[in-house]
C-alpha cells in the first residue's frame, strides 16, 4: 500500500516545518544542557531569537511537526493506493462511442463505462477525431473508442483510425449484418392497366425469406423508356416494351434523369437485357458489401492503461484532516498536562 498526492506541489509548504527543527539542530550543537538542582524557580523568559526557537520538549515538537505534516498532506490531496483500489482504478474506462450509423443506439454495456460520451458526424473519420480529442482530456485511465457501424466496404478503413494514439483501444461493433439481412428500396416502372406506373418497393432479403412490399405507385403520363424501330417493326417493338414493363424495369437508386431510348433489337429478351444494361442497376450492385471481419480485427486493439494508478478518493483527505485534528487535541492535552505538573 502506498500514498500518492493529487497536488504534490503543496508539499513545498512543509518546508516551514523544517525551520524550527533546523534551528534546534544548529543550536543544540552550541548549547550544552546544564543539570540544575531544581528548575522550579526558573520561568520562561523572553529569549534571544535562537533560544526562543530552540526546542525544549522533543515529544511536543514531534507532535506539532506531525500535525503540520498531516495538514499539508491533507491539502496535497492524499490518496491511499491499496491493491483493491488499484484494481478498481484499472477497471475504469473512458469510452468514446462513435456512431457512424446515426440510428444505432449504444448498447448498455458500452454505456457502463465510468466516463462515456457519444460522437456522431457525417464522416466516420471526423467523429473518431472528436472522440480522440475528448479522450485526451480525461483523467489518466484506460481509454477506448468504440465505433458502432455497419462497416460498409469503402465507408470504413484503417485510415479512419490513423489519428488514434496507440494507447487508446479501438473496438468495432457491427450494428447490422448485411449478409444476414438486406433491405433496400427499389424503384421500377411497371405497365399496369394500359399505362406506365412508377412503383416504389421495399425488398427485404433474409436467409430464410424474401419479401417485397410495394410502398407507393405513381402513374406516369408516358413511359420514360422508348424503343425506336422501323415503322414496320414499331408495333412489335412497342409490344415488346410493354411486355418488358409488365415484368417491371428496375431504375437506378438515383432515379432516371432523362428518358432512355434504345433501338429495337428484334426480340423481347434481348430488349430486356439491353434496357437493364442501360439502366446500370444490377441487383447485386445495390446491396452493400461490408468490411470483412479480418479487416476489422486488424483495426481493433485493446486499450493500454495510462498514467500512474491514482484512484481518487475524497475520503482520504478527510481521513488526514481527522488525524491532524486528533493530534491537535493530543497536543493541547499534552501542553495542559505539562502545565499542570
Amino acid at each position, binding site marked *: 500500500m502506498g500514498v500518492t498526492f493529487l497536488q504534490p506541489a503543496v508539499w513545498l509548504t512543509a518546508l516551514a516545518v523544517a525551520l524550527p527543527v533546523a534551528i534546534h539542530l544548529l543550536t543544540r550543537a552550541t*548549547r550544552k*544542557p*546544564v*543539570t*540544575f*538542582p531544581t528548575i522550579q524557580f*526558573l520561568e520562561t523568559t523572553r529569549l*534571544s531569537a535562537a*533560544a526562543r526557537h530552540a526546542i525544549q520538549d522533543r515529544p511536543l515538537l514531534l507532535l506539532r511537526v506531525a500535525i503540520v505534516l498531516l495538514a499539508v498532506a491533507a491539502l496535497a490531496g492524499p490518496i491511499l493506493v491499496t491493491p483493491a483500489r488499484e484494481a478498481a482504478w484499472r477497471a475504469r474506462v473512458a469510452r468514446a462511442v462513435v456512431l457512424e450509423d446515426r440510428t444505432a443506439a449504444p448498447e448498455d454495456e458500452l454505456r457502463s463505462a465510468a466516463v462515456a460520451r457519444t460522437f456522431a458526424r457525417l464522416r466516420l473519420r471526423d467523429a473518431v477525431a472528436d472522440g480522440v480529442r475528448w479522450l485526451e482530456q480525461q483523467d489518466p485511465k484506460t481509454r477506448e473508442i468504440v465505433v458502432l457501424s455497419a462497416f460498409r466496404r469503402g465507408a470504413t478503413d484503417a485510415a479512419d483510425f490513423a489519428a488514434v494514439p496507440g494507447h487508446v483501444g479501438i473496438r468495432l461493433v457491427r450494428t447490422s449484418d448485411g449478409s444476414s439481412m438486406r433491405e433496400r428500396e427499389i424503384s421500377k416502372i411497371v405497365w399496369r392497366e394500359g399505362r406506365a406506373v412508377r412503383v416504389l418497393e421495399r425488398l427485404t432479403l433474409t436467409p430464410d425469406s424474401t419479401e417485397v412490399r410495394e410502398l407507393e405507385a405513381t402513374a406516369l403520363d408516358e413511359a420514360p423508356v422508348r424503343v425506336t424501330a422501323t415503322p414496320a417493326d414499331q408495333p412489335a417493338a412497342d409490344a415488346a416494351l410493354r411486355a418488358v414493363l409488365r415484368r417491371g424495369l428496375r431504375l437506378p437508386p438515383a432515379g432516371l434523369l432523362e428518358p432512355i431510348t434504345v433501338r429495337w433489337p428484334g426480340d423481347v429478351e434481348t430488349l430486356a437485357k439491353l434496357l437493364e444494361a442501360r439502366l446500370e442497376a444490377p441487383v447485386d450492385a445495390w446491396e452493400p458489401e461490408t468490411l470483412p471481419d479480418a479487416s476489422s480485427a486488424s483495426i481493433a486493439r485493446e486499450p493500454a492503461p495510462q498514467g500512474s494508478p491514482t484512484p481518487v478518493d475524497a475520503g482520504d483527505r478527510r481521513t488526514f484532516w481527522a488525524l491532524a485534528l486528533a493530534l491537535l487535541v493530543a497536543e493541547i492535552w499534552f501542553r495542559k498536562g505539562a502545565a499542570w505538573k
Partner: protein
Amino acid sequence: MSRPHVTTAAELSTLRDLEFVARTTVEGLRHGLHRSPFHGYSAEFSQYRHYRPGDDLRYVDWKRFARTDRFYTRQFRETTNLSALFVVDVSLSMDYGGKFALAQRMAAVLGTLVLDQDDAAGLLSVSDTVNYLPPRSGHRHLTLFLRELATRRPRGATPFAAALERAGLLLTQKGLVIAVSDFYDADVVVALRRLARMGHEVVVAQALDVDELALPELGAVEFVDAETGRTVVVESGAAAPGYAARVHAWLSRLEADLRRDGFDYLRVTTGDNLERSLRRFLVARTGGA
C-alpha cells in the same frame, strides 16, 4: 541496614578531608562557644584540666584558682542520653557544584561536636537503598561516622521527606534529628513537624550552592532538572532577577515556617565560611553565651 563497604581512594581522600575540616572547625568553634550547643546530662565529676579559652566559666573551679592561681576546668563523666541522628539528603539535587561536599562537612563538624562530648551520633541517608549507621558514642564511632559520611554519594530522586519519615521509625527514643538537605522537597516541613511531634528535637541544616541563590550568567541555557529530568530553556541573564526573587521568597517562607515551628535553622552556601556560619549558629543556639 548498614552494609560492608571498602573505602576507595577518593572516599579516603574525602574522609581525610572531612576529618581535617571537622577537627579544625571544631577546634575553632570551641574557642567561640562557652558551653556545649548540644546538651546531655552530666552529673558525675571526672577530673580537672587546664582551662582553655572557650570553656564555660561555670565549670571553672574558682577555689582551685585561689589556691593555685591557675584556672582549672572541672570535667564530668557524662552519662549522656543524647542521641543525635544526622539525616543527610542524598538525592540528585544535592549533586551540584560543592553542595553535597558542603553538606558532608556540616554533618561531619556537627557530628564531631556531638561525639566529642560523648553523645551518640548516627547517620541516615535514603535513596534507592537505606543506609543507616545507628547512633553510638565514642572515638571509634566518630571514625566510623566520618567514614560512612564520606562514602555517601547523591543518587536517585527519593524525596527527603521519606528519609525523615524513616528516621522517625528508626529512632526508638527521643533524640536530636539534624536534617541536612537543600529542602527543595515541598513535603519536608510536614515531615519535620511530625518528628517534632514525636518528641525529637529538630535542627535544620540547609546546604546550597551559590549558583542556586543567584543564577550564573550562561546565556541561553537549557536547564535540566537533576531529579525529574524536565528541561527549560531560558536566557539566564534575563531570568536571573526573577529567579533570585523567587528563591529568596521561598527561602524566607521556609525559614519563617521552620522558626514558627521552633526548629533551629542553619543555612550555609558554598560561598560562605563554614566555620563562621556554624559558630554564629551554635552561639545563637546556646542562647548567645
